[in-house]
Each structure stands twice: as C-alpha cells, then as structure tokens.
C-alpha cells in the first residue's frame, strides 16, 4: 500500500505544507527586507529611481564583456543552467498541466525534443559548475556547506524529472514521487537559504539601480 499512499501524500498534504512554507517564508523575507527602509534622501533627485532600477535589473542580466576566463565560464554555465531550468519548468506539458490545475492558466507546451535538450544541458551545466567549484581554488575557498546544499536541492528535481520523463532506473510511480518530493524540499528550504535569490536578486539590482538613478548616474 506504501507507494500509492506516499504519492498521494506528496500530491496533497505534502505539497500544501511545502507551498505554505515557501509562500510564508518568501513573503515574510521580502517584506521584511523592504521594511528595513531607507532614510529619506533630502537631496534633489537628478533622475528617476524607477528607470534606473529597471535598467539595472535588465543590464545585469546580460553577459558582461569585461570578464576573466573564470568569470565567463561561471556566467555562461550559470546561464545555461538557468535557461534550461526555466524552459523545463515552464514549457513541459506535465508542468503546464500542474499550473493549469492550480492557477487555471495555461499556454502551449514545447516539443519533447526541446525539453529533453534543455534538461540535459541544464544538468550538464550544473555538474560542470560543481566540478569547477571543487577545482578552482578561489571558488573552493568561498564555498560553504550551504552552497553545496543548495546545489543539491536544485539538482535533484532536474535529475529526477529527467529520469521520470525517460523512465530511467525506477518505476514511474517511484520516480514521480521522488520528483515531487524533491521539488517540495526545494520549496521548503528556498526562503531560508541563498535560494531566496530567486527574488532578492531583483530587489538588490533594483536598489542599486535606483540609488544611481536618483543621483542621475546613468550606468
């Protein structure tokens, strides 16, 4: 009776718990940071905070041309991982089924070939990044336990998802359960680790850009 019941749990109660923790955690952290507030600047504004903020969010999402070789590797591999991750997350038909069931929204899925490629590239990029983290002395020095933990938590959903699509290694039901469980783990841990960067990145960029924009600095 075990496998079916575990699957039922992760599709129901487990998911409810994970979503609750994720939303509470994220909303709390984002609002909390926001409420730290800033002293009102008494200076005369020389430009708009909004346009500066938005511009920086955009600009820092591009690959800078002034990078070292190490920098290039990290950024490119990081890009591949993130793009692959979001392509599979948003355009696999099964994920759209889920989104439709929860939010009522839906859009066309991408062909399975594209998804497969995105997943494989994404997995490869993650592995390459991990290896680089071990090999590169500077990165190794900078890494702590949380870096490896968050790597693992982001890697597991990708890997289990790919195995599920291709039914590799285990039965469908086992893989489906593992996949959902791994995502739930990610959701639960995300707000309290570096994974919160999925939101804080944009806040931080906006903040930097807005400060500059206010001063009329155009970068």
């Amino acid at each position, binding site marked *: *009776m075990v496998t079916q019941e575990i*699957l039922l749990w992760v*599709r129901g109660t487990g998911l409810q718990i994970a979503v609750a923790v994720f939303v509470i955690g994220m909303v709390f952290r984002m609002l909390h940071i926001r*409420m730290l507030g800033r002293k009102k600047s008494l200076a005369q504004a020389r430009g708009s905070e909004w346009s500066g903020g938005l511009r920086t969010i955009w600009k820092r999402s591009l690959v800078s041309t002034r990078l070292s070789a190490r920098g290039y590797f990290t950024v490119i591999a990081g890009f591949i991982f993130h793009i692959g991750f979001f392509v599979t997350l948003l355009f696999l038909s099964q994920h759209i089924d889920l989104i439709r069931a929860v939010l009522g929204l839906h859009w066309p899925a991408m062909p399975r070939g594209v998804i497969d490629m995105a997943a494989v590239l994404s997995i490869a990029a993650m592995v390459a990044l991990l290896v680089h983290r071990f090999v590169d002395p500077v990165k190794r020095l900078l890494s702590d336990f949380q870096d490896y933990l968050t790597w693992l938590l982001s890697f597991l959903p990708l890997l289990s998802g790919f195995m599920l699509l291709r039914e590799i290694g285990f039965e469908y*039901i086992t893989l489906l359960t593992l996949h959902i469980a791994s995502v739930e783990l990610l959701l639960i841990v995300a707000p309290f680790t570096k994974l919160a960067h999925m939101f804080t990145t944009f806040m931080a960029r906006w903040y930097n850009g807005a400060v500059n924009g206010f001063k009329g600095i155009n970068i």
Partner: protein
Amino acid sequence: MEHETLEQRLHEQGISRRSFLKFCAAMATMMALPPGSASAIAATLAKVKRPSVIWLSFQECTGCTESLTRSHSPTLESMIFDMVSLDYHHTLQAASGHAAEQARDDAMKEFHGKYLLLVDGSIPIKDGGVYSTIAGRTNLDMLLEAAEGAAAIVAVGSCAAFGGLPNAQPNPTGAVAVSDLIKDKPIINISGCPPIPAVITGVLAHYLTFGALPALDALGRPKAFYGETIHDRCYRRPMYEQGKFARTFDDEGARNGWCLYELGCKGPTTHNACATTKWNGGTSFPIESGHGCIGCSEPKFWDAGSFYAPLPAPTADIASVAKTAAVVGAAAAVIAGAVDRGKKTQLQQSLVKLTVEDLKGD
C-alpha cells in the same frame, strides 16, 4: 467425498484429450506462461484432485462475481464443474437460507486445512462489524472462522484486496482489506474494480497446476498480471513520448487516438494486465475505447483526486493554502518590522551624545 481428478471428470463427459489440450493452451495464455507449457499444464491438471472452494461475499457490489461470470475461458460452468468444486457462493449456488449455510459448514469441516477461500468485498470492522451481516453474523466473524481452515485465501477485487470503495474517505464503516485481518495464511490479491475475469481464473488455474500460489509483488498481486503498468504496455505510448495529448474527449487529438494523460489517465501508476489481456473476451481495454485508466487496481484509487485530473495535478487545494500563507507571511513581516522599528528607536534613545567635555577627559 474426496473430489475426483479433472481427467476422470472430463473423460466421463466425453471430452477429448485434444479439447483438453486446447483448454490448456488457453490457460497458458491466461496465466501469461510461455505458450509451449500447455502440454505440461495438461499433464499436471489431469492428475490433480479438484479442490473445494468456498467463496464469501462481504461489503461488495457483486461486480467481481459479474466479472467472473463473464470470464471467457474457461467458461464459468466449466470452471465450476470441472476445475474446482465451488461448495459455497451465495449468489451462484442453488441452495439458499439454512441449507446454504449448512453447505458452507459442511465443506469447512470436510476439507479443513485444504479448501481455497475466495473473498470479495471489504470487511467493515467499526462498531463490532455490524454494518454488514449475513444470516445475522458479521462479515468479520465469518471471515475469521472460514480463514482458519483455509489452505490459502484469494482476495478478489480491490475491496477485498485493499479496502476499495467502502474504504474511501471518510470510510464510515471502518472497512478494511482481508490482509489487514488475516496474517497467518497465504493471501493473494487479485485487485481491480472489477478484476479482469481471465486473471481470476488464471490464478485459480495456476494454483491447481502448480499447487502453490504464483509469484507475488509487494502488494500481494500475481506478478504475471500485475508486473507491468498499463502505461508500459499501452499502444498509445508512442503518442505520450511524442507529447501528443488529447485535451478533451472529442477533440482532434482524441479522434486521432492520442495519449489520454491530460484527460486524467492513471496508466503510468497502475499495475494491471488490461493492455494485453484486455476485456470482454479480448475485445479491447478502456484506453482503446478512448477513456483513460482510472487506476482501479491500486490501493486508495478512490482518494487519488478526480479521475479526470491529470497525474501532475495536486490532490488537495493549493491555491487557498498559498493565499492564506501570503497573508500570514505579510502579517509576520509587519510584526517583525514593527519590532525592528521599536528596537531602532530604543537604541536611538539610549544613545548618549558625545560632548566636548567627554573628550577632554579629566
């Protein structure tokens, strides 16, 4: 009153050896054995004594019996009269009332330790089992009594095997499966709602041929029939792989025979033989008729969300949980923010201003 062998029985009826061989070929197919084993099956089957079978129906809808009486091979009559001696089945037997109960008692005494006990339906155990009784006795009581002298128990259908519909939330009668109550007898679960008739007879044939239960999976189901999922053997599988899904039951995709995953097909998580053994004398199986698998041979399938919700869909309400969580998170942040501000003002107030006097020292 030892039962005679099947060979004697057939011979008396003037059934030729060749007919018997044909019958065994059908059996081999049914048991998912290599087709060449038909002659070996014939050799053993001919020699065995027909075992006594007692069939108890508990909290059930008679669908399993209906399924069995539609069993195409061997026909029910031939099975009843030739392969086993069905000594008690309250729907199928001619006797009724006290005579029927007497027949059961007699068979239980006569073949103590040797008879095969077939059970369909779940057993309600809440409030002492009063929710289902036969001749004034609770199902629970009857099962415990009959199980005591059984050589093995066959739980026919998802209700007897896993609790089935009566066991679905909120399970008002406290319905449980046979295996929840009986721990000291070999139990074989033939799940399905109803089970494929050929599987019921196939398992009986296996028991007769080999004198033992077939290999079982972790849920006590015969591996020969439940070893693979519907999805593993589904002829629409290439469509699934290509991402071709029907969206509604009458769209272009549905007409083209595309995969029914998005229409709620539970084939990927359901172990049963429908895709190969098929239904109605091998005519087809549900997916061939354009309807997804509802997962009827798996535990708790009634509680696994809508039959028409795709597998990735959550089985509980996620949207309202998220909404409540957002409110809770925001409230917590406001409180934390107020606390922060309080601390800040406190610190500011407790700040002692440095004056020139302080710097001068003394």
